[in-house]
């Protein structure tokens, strides 16, 4: 990106000898505004609608279907409604922290978009520590949630905030360690570098590179669910226990911002897993045209991420919530040791086969296909023997 701006400056598009820093700054503002307002914010909104529709389908309801075709503009209506609502700040609340908290949470959602690798060229900043930046900045969410829980001056909020802190910090560890195997294999922390080390064929993905990576990917997915406060780990806002958890005292737009970040974080988590384990934007080389290839890569990346987003909605529609002690023991007694083993195992693997082992890739891919087939067979089995249609024709 910087290279492109440099060529524009050299071509004299901004007058003779423009101050480079100023041009950069303008570009940063404009591009981030485009990405945030044009991609990140509408995305979170649309995900909220999709989630409600998917959820409704799972629960044999209809879901929002009134605003726009199939209710697809529901998120705009909800947003407008929340903007016009009264912004209540409790008397006893720490007003400054209370007001600030939602923005910190949203910051944790929008900042990772800076290193989001949509295609080989579409990336705002290909940092050489991209993946580190990514995990560090998503942890900002916990600061906001804790802030909200503390500042609300409500015991339910406080419990929600503390739960969130305990949960996110704990799950950062297995999540962080599940990233190491890929870093060990590629030797880079850059998002683009990791994707370029993979190919578009599934058996070249790091998911199937070796058994340890496969397990690490699953650990990462579950940890990402936990970090995003998603069911079965939605304890911080457990509505049946803590009223609304850390968001109890919030209303109007501030309340919406929390959930906005939650919906958006599904994409962030999906993007992380896609980049690391599912081949990122890698697409089959169908054309030599750069634009066509970039579009293909964009589609490939988004399809994978949206599949993961859908899975997370599916999980939310199916599973109950775990208890706080079960969640912590799952993390510390199972995920952390497993993640350690994955790291050591991958290190040994890399020591034995420094260039990777393609045979293992094929075998793992076949196993993955078999697992998928088994899963589909189970689902079809339940679909077939599930209930018959019944309509009792009520007379009234």
């Amino acid at each position, binding site marked *: 990106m910087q290279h492109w701006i440099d060529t524009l400056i050299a071509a004299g598009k901004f007058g003779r000898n423009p101050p480079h820093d100023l041009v950069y700054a303008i570009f940063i503002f404009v591009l981030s505004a485009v990405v945030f307002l044009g991609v990140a914010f509408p995305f979170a909104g649309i995900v909220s609608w999709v989630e409600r529709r998917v959820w409704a389908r799972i*629960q044999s309801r209809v879901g929002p279907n009134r605003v726009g075709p199939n209710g697809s503009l529901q998120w705009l209506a909800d947003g407008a409604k929340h903007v016009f609502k009264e912004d209540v700040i409790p008397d006893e609340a720490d007003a400054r922290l209370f007001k600030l908290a939602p923005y910190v949470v949203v910051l944790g959602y929008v900042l990772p978009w800076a290193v989001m690798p949509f295609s080989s060229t579409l990336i705002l900043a290909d940092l050489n520590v991209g993946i580190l930046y990514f995990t560090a900045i998503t942890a900002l969410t916990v600061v906001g949630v804790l802030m909200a829980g503390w500042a609300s001056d409500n015991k339910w909020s406080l419990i929600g905030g503390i739960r969130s802190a305990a949960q996110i910090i704990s799950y950062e560890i297995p999540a962080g360690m599940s990233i190491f195997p890929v870093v060990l294999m590629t030797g880079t922390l850059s998002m683009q570098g990791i994707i370029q080390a993979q190919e578009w064929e599934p058996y070249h993905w790091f998911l199937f590179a070796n058994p340890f990576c496969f397990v690490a990917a699953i650990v990462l997915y579950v940890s990402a669910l936990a970090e995003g406060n998603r069911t079965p780990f939605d304890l911080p806002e*457990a509505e049946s*226990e*803590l009223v609304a958890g850390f968001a109890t005292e919030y209303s109007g737009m501030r309340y919406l911002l929390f959930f906005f970040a939650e919906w958006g974080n599904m994409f962030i988590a999906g993007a992380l897993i896609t980049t690391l384990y599912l081949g990122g934007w890698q697409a089959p080389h169908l054309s030599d045209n750069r634009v066509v290839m970039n579009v293909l890569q964009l589609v490939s990346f988004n399809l994978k991420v949206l599949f993961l987003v859908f899975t997370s909605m599916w999980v939310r529609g199916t599973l*109950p919530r775990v*208890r706080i002690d079960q969640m912590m023991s799952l993390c510390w007694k199972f995920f952390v040791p497993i993640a350690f083993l994955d790291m050591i195992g991958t290190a040994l693997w890399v020591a034995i086969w420094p260039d990777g082992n393609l045979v293992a890739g094929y075998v793992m891919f076949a196993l993955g296909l078999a697992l998928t087939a088994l899963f589909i067979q189970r689902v079809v089995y339940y679909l077939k023997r599930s209930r018959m249609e019944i309509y*009792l024709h*009520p*007379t009234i």
Partner: protein
Amino acid sequence: MSDAVESIPRTDDSTLRTEEMTLNMGPQHPSTHGVLRFVIRADGEVMREAVPDVGYLHRSIEKIAEKVGYHGFMPYTDRVDYVCAMFTNQGWGMACEKLGNIEVPRRGEYCRVIAAEFNRIASHLLTVGLMGMDIGAMTPFLHALREREMINDLIEELCGARLTFNYMRIGGVAWDLPPGWREKALAYLDHLEPILEEYNALFSYNQICVQRLANVAPISAEEAINYNLVGPNLRASGVKWDVRKDMPYSAYRDFDFDVPVGRGQWGTVGDSMDRYMMRIYEMRESAKILRQALTNMPDGPVLAKVVRNFRPPAGECQVRVESARGDQGWYVVSDGTGYPWRVHVRTGSFAAMGMIQKLSRGLMIADLVVLIASLDVIAPEIDR
């Protein structure tokens, strides 16, 4: 209200001094099943004690009975427990019949059993669904309500109401089954049994669900009897006591059904999982009773001749009905006038409520929600 807070004993047994906080759960809390209030003394997530504070839904229903007369009180009984109003209807009807020596026609008794057992299934569906919602899964709740909706349709056809039925009368029921209703009811039962299997596969046997419910707040058989628990809560602790079986009333003598008891397959006998599964088992037994009742229905009238100005002779009586929330006692004193002198209802939720304070010690806050849901506490039934 302040009494509830003051009555909590202070404990200083821990060596590590941490500050306890007093949490106020309810009366407006999403998982208190109506208007309940608990004063929780908690150390972080672990509760020292949860003290129930009842009375927010008191409507003086027993006093109303003394003012509106025997026939007039029937619609009010719906409000004692609006989740399974057929049983309160039946309890009041049976008490008046006992006082006035009225014989209910055979077909009337069968209609009562059919309506009541359908209502039991509806109530249990709501209970298992709410358990799902209380531990964070919305889907089981909506699936259960979808099935309950069909029962509501059936009962609406039967008596015109979906929640507060006012179906029964002193001396029988208000209306006979409408034409074609029997076939619909049987079709629904055919539909229900596979649905329960599906529900179990979706939710009950889910590993997270089992881990959340098993070994949470177990009640031993002795404790359950001492605290006067009734119905499914008592049977979950392994005590085989069912008023329908042990003190048969209405037409229950004619039917062949089992009384399931808790065996503790998932953990301890009498834990929350046992209490939860008890509802699923009972729905199956109810379906069994309904099939027999619907196929063997005798002909004849459904309502005995009862004078409009019903004046039972002076005396008192006590009847027991096995409601969805357990043994429901109706104590009625008549002084020979057209108005009862005293009415008292003894309900299952009230007894269960009395046990929560003891069970809550050492549980986590999330477990309290499970405990309330597993005891199937319904707020209007506690306060009446």
